């Protein structure tokens, strides 16, 4: 999941939000990491480019743990 964390930090950094040294599965993308829907759209595109999965298609995704679950199928 190192690559996922890198991508999340890349989105945070390019949008001038605080990057994280460590991530918890319970970290909420909006409430804890400060992302808005535009940042989430960027995140989904970068994750899709890397993993070929659209994480926001289907079930709702709120946390880092939700993303991991989607990626693990």
């Amino acid at each position, binding site marked *: 999941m190192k690559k996922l964390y890198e991508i999340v930090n890349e989105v945070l950094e*390019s*949008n*001038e939000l605080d990057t994280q040294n460590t991530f918890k599965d319970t970290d909420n993308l909006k409430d804890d990491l400060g992302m*808005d*829907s*535009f940042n*989430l*759209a*960027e995140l*989904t*595109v970068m994750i899709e480019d890397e993993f070929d999965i*659209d994480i*926001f*298609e289907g079930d709702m995704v709120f946390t880092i743990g939700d993303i991991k679950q989607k990626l693990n199928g």
Partner: protein
Amino acid sequence: MDKIFLIDKNTITYTNLIDYINLNVFSDEYTEWEVFILNTIKNLASKGVSNHTDLINVLHKNNKHIELLSSGTTGEPKVIYQSFKNMVRNISISEDDSVWAMFYHPNRMAGYQVLFQTLLNGQTLVNMRGYDYKEIQDRILTYNVTHISATPTLYKMILGPTFDKVKQITFGGDGSTKNLQHQISKYFPNARIKNIYASTEGGSLFASNGELFHIPIKYMDKIKIVDNEIHIHNDLVGLSTSIEMDGDWYNTGDLIEFVTDTEFKIVGRSSNVVKVAGYNVNLESIESKILKIEGIKLCKISSKYNSVLGNMLIAEIIALDGYSLIDIKRSMRDGLEKFEIPTKISFVESIELNENGKIKR
């Protein structure tokens, strides 16, 4: 004769140009563009044109039609038959030694506008088609070009040296903003700015000395704005089986934005509007806004489905050396609304333009 100057009143009159054509002097050495212009003049000759007065009479009073291709920004180009009268109605006759640069494909509406401008005024025409951007810069300077008509996209690509001999720059084709025009005009310190709105279907409709247009009094009953789109009356529309009319009216699909009660600016095409996060976004308007950002030479915006936003914007950017993606993104955050910032941004080496210098979509 220097074949760069096809219509130079100092060296060639209409009569001897027609003789020249009739003698079949032009050969395969001529480009498709040059042959086209010579054929147009030959076509005029067949209508009895042998001097300047005849030409004005034919173009202004004749109801003969000429075959045109629409620019084909979207979809296949359409063939439209437009009258000479409709095509030349905004061209004024003046006595001067202007040198016009031809950027447009000559058998499109915008190309004909420039060609007839030079023909009607006995001015000089310098071809810019088929040359790279550096060569175009050199040609503008070498041939002392005084008048240019091009899309904002094309102007952006040829910026570099100061073109102080240029007296007039005309914008047509794309939606462009005052700021972008101001930025471009810095490289043309002695030029006045003119805007023109012409469509293949309707001919030349509005001309203005600024960014804003208004409906001329003579067309008050021939042009109407419905839902911010320009509709033109059948009387102004060319003949074609591929023009879909709504009763007596043709919807151009060109979008405007009213700035005052009667004045408006053209912001793009309705087919280029997409919904991003619930907002209606005009791809061409975003391109204009992004082009104002320092470090950006050219930009193409497209859209794609996105599960979070509905649609997302994708930017392809030609950046100047020394500017990073982070710099560009920061400037976008400062100058654009959130929903206008492209979700995906990539740097590219080139962006394909169509025959008329508009971004190919």
